[in-house]
């Protein structure tokens, strides 16, 4: 039986105009990925400055320069609808890669911030 589970992976952007590339591994018993969501501890910096590439199982779902704000969600959206719908993605080897690019924007002043990638998954229940 599959049960829903949410996974969170964090990266830290420590310098302005930095590119942060990081890979994460999903649990082996995760069988489906349904959606993605981006948040941050400094929402304005992520919203105005961020863009990223996201790969799951070495397959690119969002290319370079895809703006982070398109994967964010405000409090106006009901909590159950906040993930970007990917359909039903087979995670394969469970590898998730994010290449995050920070870029100056005239509306923000840089300070170190965290970017969190959330995945809406289904995992196999062993019981």
């Amino acid at each position, binding site marked *: 039986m599959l049960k829903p589970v949410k996974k969170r992976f964090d990266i830290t952007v420590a310098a302005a105009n930095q590119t942060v590339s990081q890979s994460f591994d999903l649990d082996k018993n995760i069988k489906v990925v349904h959606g993605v969501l981006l948040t941050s501890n400094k*929402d*304005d910096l992520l*919203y105005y400055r961020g863009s990223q590439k996201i790969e799951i199982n070495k397959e690119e779902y969002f290319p370079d*320069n895809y703006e982070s704000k398109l994967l*964010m969600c405000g409090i*106006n*959206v009901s909590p159950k609808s906040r993930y970007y719908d990917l359909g039903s993605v087979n995670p394969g080897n469970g590898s998730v890669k994010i290449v995050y690019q920070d870029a100056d924007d005239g509306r923000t002043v840089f300070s170190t911030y965290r970017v969190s990638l959330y995945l809406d998954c289904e995992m196999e229940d062993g019981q």
Partner: protein
Amino acid sequence: MIYEQVIINRLVIDRPKQVRMFQVKLPRQTQNVIGVETGIRWVNGVPVLPPPEILPWKLPTTIQANTYIGDLKLQSTETGNIFFASDLVLNNNNDYADFTSQYLVPKNYTNQFKAEKDPVKIGGKATVLFGCYKDNLADTIPTPFKYIVSVYVWIKLYDNASNQKP
């Protein structure tokens, strides 16, 4: 197998009333163009918003004019012709009629709605789409500015055109 892909075009706008013509090249395996999204990033010359209302707080029921940045059109050589036309605007009415704004001033990055692509359905036989972006920010701010417009074109395509495309 059918899958989706997004093609990103970035346009640098740095002159008043600038008009940029551009092309979006579609892969041969494209079946349909299914959606368009737009985005904007400031480099310099950010429009200054009017200062927020000072106390005492009252329910914001006056609509502010949004900042009109420019307009974008996309054209296909197929029968769809000009299939997408949209204004780029900065929303200045986040707090309109929001009674919670007394304590949490709504911003684009806190109160945005779910980002969705504008759905379109255009055949993919054309290998290229033509686009035109026209700046209108010069009407609002007379000082120099520079910004980057991102145009996201979502397509649906086959992974092998030779044996699956009808």
